[in-house]
């Protein structure tokens, strides 16, 4: 069954054929039904006519006979009246009647009791046929009291002629008779006698039984009380009434018909007998009050219709099947191109784009479909070609961009710390383009004890900005090598960029020259956001700048430079607007305020640390948002010259006992600086950890080495530096101990660096050359006057 289902849904010709079949069948069925109904009606009508006419014919014949008898008797009654005085003559009348009428089996003239005194109670001359002869006798005897007989009494009481209800002949030969009685009255109108004619019902039965409009028809005749007079089954005759018979079959319909029949109606009824359906046609025999009926089998009547129906069914079915088959073949042939096109399309879909489509000769919808497919094929081929080209292009561009990026990154200083040998200046910078290449730039170099630096932002992003950035970067180096004022540098840059600026790109910039000996900063701003100065003792402030104008807009603009005296221990934090304009997913900007607040709180004066902190905070803010602009930070710190201010130093050996020496060293320092015992304790703790690390892990076993611990007191900070020449080891890389773990889970180690971080405000590790430099900064309260 499942297969059939598939075949059905997969074959269009089949489906369509079946739809056609369905429609045609429906139409046929309706037409047929309508036809059949009218055919049936017609047949019914005709059969009724047929049966009824057969019935009527028979009844007519019966009526004729009855009438002839009536007439004969009525005529003779006159004779009787004439011959009343001669009773013996009456015999000739009865003989005459019997002789002249083949139907009449006997005739009598029965007189009222004692009409003829001499004859007494009974006088009834009677003639009858017997064995071909006509005999006569007296009817009335002691045994046969004719006055009480129906044939005498009823016409007498009713004063009308009367056909009696059939009865069995006294002779006992099982012959059923009926008697016609005609009352005779004397001159005074008094009833005197009945003249009768006896008829055998045999002839009538023959007539009734001859009605055979249909092969299975059978007939019956009933009397005035419904008694069967003629019937298929002999035992019913004169024994059973139609009412009783119908009731015993619970056929109320037939009872009603019986009523109709005895009521002298003609008509038609239906009944069931032994599972067969019959039609009953009935008509009255008016003269006697009997009724004749013929029962026809329903199937006989409609036999013709039935067989015709069978034929038409068979023919119809064959026709429909044939039609469906032809339909199917035709449709299949006509839709063959569809299959071919489908196959070709499948081929194309698999990748054979150049597959040839089948030829269509017709100019109908198939052709249209074919042409559309062909067009689609061509478009596909073209599209794929274009796609190949553009993809190749894209890949080329991407690889070029990658190269461009590395070129760009190569343009800016990348090595940090840039001047490790110098202790008075430290710089750190980070450039993060939004795309592969960006428009931000920075650069710096030291010449003649002066630090030249620039930070800039080309308008836009991507390749265009990066090209201008490249130009600007190179120009800066070149120009700064012979122009020594910031405003001069800026002006020259501006000139260069303004020329040949067909695409109207501009660049904001901040150029500065810091005198490393004096700390004097000369700077010139070109539309760039002003840097933030981090002060030695903490706090930050925005450097006031004259905005001037961004580069590349107005050639010949008069740029103004400015000066600022930087203190030792302070920092200059420069950035591009990518920092303050970093967005989160809701487009909320990072903001100047947030930057300033963060910088104010920084205890460290390490440019790297500060920069990292800011970048972390930006990341915290932006979260999952895409970087919208290039982010650049350039941070430099002006430190104290060596030997300046407070600096203590102790050289330690890599022996565990040296910790005691360090402890003493720290104790002395704590006293001199008036440190609280707690602070002392903590410093001690942190330093012990750091120094232990070096002693235990920096050098190979057995080798004796020395390393230095310096402490510098700057403002409210103590800057501890441990410089050793051991193997590279960054203690800041060790993860903090998880102090929330339970005892069992706690690893033994890791506490050291955790303590150091907790105690010190800043911890920084640097590998410079072959040296590990660990810098720890502790902020201590300002001394409260004297101790």
């Amino acid at each position, binding site marked *: 069954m499942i297969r059939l289902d598939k075949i059905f849904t997969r074959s269009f010709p089949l489906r369509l054929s079946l739809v056609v079949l369905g429609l045609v069948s429906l139409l046929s069925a309706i037409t047929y039904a309508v036809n059949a109904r009218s055919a049936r009606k017609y047949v019914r009508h005709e059969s009724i006519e047929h049966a009824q006419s057969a019935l009527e014919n028979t009844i007519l014949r019966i009526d004729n006979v009855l009438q002839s008898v009536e007439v004969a008797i009525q005529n003779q009654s006159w004779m009787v009246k004439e011959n009343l005085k001669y009773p013996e003559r009456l015999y000739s009348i009865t003989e005459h009647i019997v002789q002249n009428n083949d139907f009449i089996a006997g005739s009598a003239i029965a007189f009222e009791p004692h009409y003829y005194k001499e004859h007494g109670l009974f006088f009834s001359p009677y003639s009858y046929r017997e064995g071909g002869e006509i005999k006569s006798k007296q009817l009335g005897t002691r045994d046969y009291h004719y006055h009480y007989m129906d044939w005498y009494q009823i016409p007498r009481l009713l004063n009308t002629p009367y056909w009696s209800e059939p009865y069995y002949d006294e002779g006992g030969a099982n012959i059923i008779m009926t008697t016609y009685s005609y009352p005779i009255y004397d001159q005074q109108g008094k009833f005197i006698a009945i003249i009768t004619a006896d008829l055998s019902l045999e002839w009538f039965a023959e007539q009734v039984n001859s009605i055979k409009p249909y092969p299975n028809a059978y007939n019956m005749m009933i009397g005035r009380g419904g008694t069967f007079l003629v019937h298929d089954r002999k035992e019913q005759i004169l024994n059973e009434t139609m009412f009783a018979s119908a009731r015993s079959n619970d056929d109320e319909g037939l009872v009603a018909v019986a009523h109709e029949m005895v009521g002298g109606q003609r008509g038609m009824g239906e009944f069931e007998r032994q599972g067969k359906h019959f039609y009953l046609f009935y008509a009255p025999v008016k003269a006697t009050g009997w009724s004749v009926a013929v029962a026809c089998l329903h199937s006989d009547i409609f036999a013709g219709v039935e067989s015709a129906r069978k034929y038409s069914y068979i023919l119809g079915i064959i026709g429909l099947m044939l039609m469906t088959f032809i339909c199917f073949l035709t449709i299949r042939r006509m839709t063959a191109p569809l299959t071919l096109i489908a196959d070709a399309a499948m081929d194309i879909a698999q990748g054979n784009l150049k597959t040839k489509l089948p030829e269509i000769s017709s100019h109908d919808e198939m052709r249209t479909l074919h042409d559309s497919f062909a067009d689609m094929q061509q478009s596909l081929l073209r599209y794929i070609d274009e796609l190949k080209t553009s993809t190749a292009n894209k890949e080329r561009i991407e690889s070029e961009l990658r190269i461009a990026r590395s070129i760009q990154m190569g343009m800016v200083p990348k090595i940090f710390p840039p001047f490790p040998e110098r202790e008075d200046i430290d710089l750190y910078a980070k450039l993060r383009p939004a795309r592969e290449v960006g428009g931000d730039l920075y650069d710096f170099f030291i010449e003649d004890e002066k630090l030249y630096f620039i930070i800039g932002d080309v308008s836009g992003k991507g390749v265009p900005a990066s090209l201008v950035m490249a130009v600007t970067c190179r120009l800066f180096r070149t120009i700064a090598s012979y122009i020594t004022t910031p405003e001069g540098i800026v002006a020259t840059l501006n000139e260069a960029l303004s020329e040949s600026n067909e695409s109207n790109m501009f660049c904001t910039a901040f150029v500065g020259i810091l005198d490393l000996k004096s700390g004097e900063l000369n700077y010139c701003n070109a539309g760039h956001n002003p840097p933030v100065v981090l002060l030695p003792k903490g706090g930050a402030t925005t450097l006031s700048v004259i905005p001037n104008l961004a580069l590349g807009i107005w050639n010949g603009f008069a740029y103004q430079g400015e000066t600022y005296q930087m203190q030792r221990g302070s920092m200059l934090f420069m950035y591009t607007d990518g920092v303050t304009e970093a967005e989160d997913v809701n487009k909320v900007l990072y903001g100047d305020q947030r930057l300033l607040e963060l910088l104010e709180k920084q205890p460290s004066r390490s440019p790297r640390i500060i920069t990292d902190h800011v970048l972390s905070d930006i990341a915290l803010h932006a979260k999952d948002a895409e970087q919208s602009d290039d982010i650049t930070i350039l941070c430099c710190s002006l430190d104290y010259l060596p030997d300046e201010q407070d600096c203590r130093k102790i050289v330690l050996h890599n022996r*565990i*006992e040296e*910790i005691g020496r360090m402890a003493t060293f720290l104790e002395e320092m704590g006293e001199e600086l008036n440190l609280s015992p707690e602070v002392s*304790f903590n410093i001690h*703790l942190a330093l012990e950890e750091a120094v232990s690390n070096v002693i235990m892990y920096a050098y190979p076993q057995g080798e004796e080495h020395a390393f230095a611990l310096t402490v510098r007191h700057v403002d409210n900070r103590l800057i501890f530096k441990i410089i050793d020449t051991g193997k590279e080891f960054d203690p800041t890389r060790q993860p903090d*101990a998880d*102090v929330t773990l339970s*005892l069992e889970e706690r690893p033994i*180690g890791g506490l050291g660096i955790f*303590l150091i971080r907790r105690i010190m405000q800043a911890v920084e590790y640097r590998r410079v050359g072959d040296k590990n430099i660990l810098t720890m900064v502790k902020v201590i309260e300002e001394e409260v006057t004297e101790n």
Partner: protein
Amino acid sequence: MDITILKENGATIVNIVGRLDTVTSPELDQAVKPLIDLGATIVFDCEQMDYVSSSGLRVVLSTHKQLAAVGGRFIVRNLNNEVRSVFDLTGFSRLLTIE
């Protein structure tokens, strides 16, 4: 650093005098080892302990773990403020029984 060991009410009292640092921690460790016994109670009395470093803390932790393994009890008492704050800082206060 000096260590004195006393017995008091069925418990072993270890008095630590001086600095418990990287140098002196191994000494304490050695002294404590034999004291670890089934169901023993050990008390570190730190009244005269000036200073503890991470090495010292390691010994404390190790002592605690060892005692726990044998169903013993470990008590640390009389910590001075600085030492106490270090214990707090490192979460040791929550782990140990401190009196």
